[in-house]
């Protein structure tokens, strides 16, 4: 099956600043992908590259098997919702749907009108008069109304109150079930991502630190608490993601494809939030102290730490 998104050594520079470095991904189709990372990590850049708004300065990217933005066929297959859900303030809701109909070959007017009715919005109302939640819903309606095979959403719920956020995600998941739409969405709200995503990408300082199916990620990561010891004293086959020590105790987050062997430690699974924070902190400390990164972080997070440091400054 054609990958939802495939990137090979993908890179993007704005002048001297690296926004994305050596990004290699292969996301199978049919997923709802969560994209998470600190501000400035490269999330928006990756989404803009995937939608064709930007062209990479190095490497390659393909979405559903084609170069993003290459021709009207590809544009029709990909829906993109930029940050803050932009709408035209002086145009009415009906105007937005009309615009959608004129600009998109696969536009589904029935779907769009049903959705607006479901939201109990007045089609004659100007978009500038809508609340933040209503604006986001209108933008999603236009993006989903073009019946794309993949929806790319840049922090779509960031400015919404909890109720509006839930409403937005409900409608998004409805599109996933009804049309089998794939979704890539960035967010800082890990609890939301935990609900709706089955694939996760952690981006820090322009690099992909972790990417994979959520089930696999949560099954292969463990937190081990034991008496103080060096990571080297742990059984072979464990990849140490992070290590912290007190005078007496060591706490490791490890990745292991095989079940964790029994030993003189307490082991537990990590919540998605803890897991994401662990990777962010590991990348952060690798960037801040490249000299100690070799001992405190494993190969996944520690690789390329010098370049990470360059970006952090």
């Amino acid at each position, binding site marked *: 099956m054609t990958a939802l998104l495939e990137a090979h050594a993908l890179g993007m520079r704005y002048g001297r600043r690296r926004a994305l470095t050596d990004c290699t991904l292969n996301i199978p189709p049919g997923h*709802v992908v969560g994209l998470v990372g600190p501000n400035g990590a490269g999330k928006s850049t990756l989404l803009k590259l995937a939608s064709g708004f930007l062209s990479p300065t190095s490497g390659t990217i393909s979405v559903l098997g084609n170069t993003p933005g290459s021709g009207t066929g590809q544009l029709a297959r990909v829906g993109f919702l930029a940050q803050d859900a932009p709408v035209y303030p002086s145009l009415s809701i009906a105007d937005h749907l009309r615009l959608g109909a004129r600009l998109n070959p696969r536009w589904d007017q029935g779907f769009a009108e049903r959705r607006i009715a479901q939201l109990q919005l007045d089609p004659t109302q100007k978009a500038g008069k809508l609340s933040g939640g209503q604006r986001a819903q209108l933008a999603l309606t236009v993006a989903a109304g073009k019946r794309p095979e993949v929806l790319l959403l840049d922090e779509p719920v960031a400015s919404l109150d909890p109720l509006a956020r*839930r409403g937005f*995600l*409900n*409608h*998004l*998941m*409805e599109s*996933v*079930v*009804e049309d089998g739409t794939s979704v890539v969405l960035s967010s800082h709200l890990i*609890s*939301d991502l*935990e*609900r*709706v*995503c*089955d694939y996760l990408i952690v981006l820090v300082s322009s690099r992909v630190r972790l990417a994979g199916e959520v*089930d696999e990620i*949560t099954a292969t990561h463990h937190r081990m608490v034991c008496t103080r010891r060096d990571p080297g004293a742990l059984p072979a086959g464990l990849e140490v993601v992070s290590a912290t020590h007190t005078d007496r105790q060591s706490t490791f987050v490890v990745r292991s494809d095989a*079940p964790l062997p*029994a030993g003189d430690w*307490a*082991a537990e*699974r990590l*919540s998605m939030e803890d897991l994401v924070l662990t990777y962010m902190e590991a990348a952060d400390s690798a960037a801040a102290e490249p000299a100690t990164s070799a001992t405190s972080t494993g190969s996944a997070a520690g690789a390329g730490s010098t370049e990470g440091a360059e970006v952090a400054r």
Partner: protein
Amino acid sequence: MNRGLVIEFHLDPRTGVAPYLQLVQQVRQALLLGLLSEGDQLPTVKQVVTKIAINPNTVLKAYRDLEREGLVAPKPGVGTFVTKTLGQASLVEHEPLRRELAAWLGRARAAGLTEPGIEAMFQSTLRESGEEEK
């Protein structure tokens, strides 16, 4: 709006329990409480995802798990139906197991284990035996 639905799901992000497992536990609990019985239809995937904003694959995974346990069965094109009633009877059936556990707890306390210690041992053993089965 919820007419015809027998049960409703909810998700608690703070428990640390995987979302699909939360759904499995809620169905099991509904069976134990007698809220669900043989022949009842579980909410469709679409009903669940539009109600609690959850990934559809999570719902499918939970239903597959329940199917593997023999509690529900899918009818293609219609939905997923409860095939077994878990009433109080099942707890009675397992009374010997409960008594063994109570006896074990007595021995653990006699050996000097405190409640947190017992819990830690139970949790880690439960996890290990779960992983061995896979």
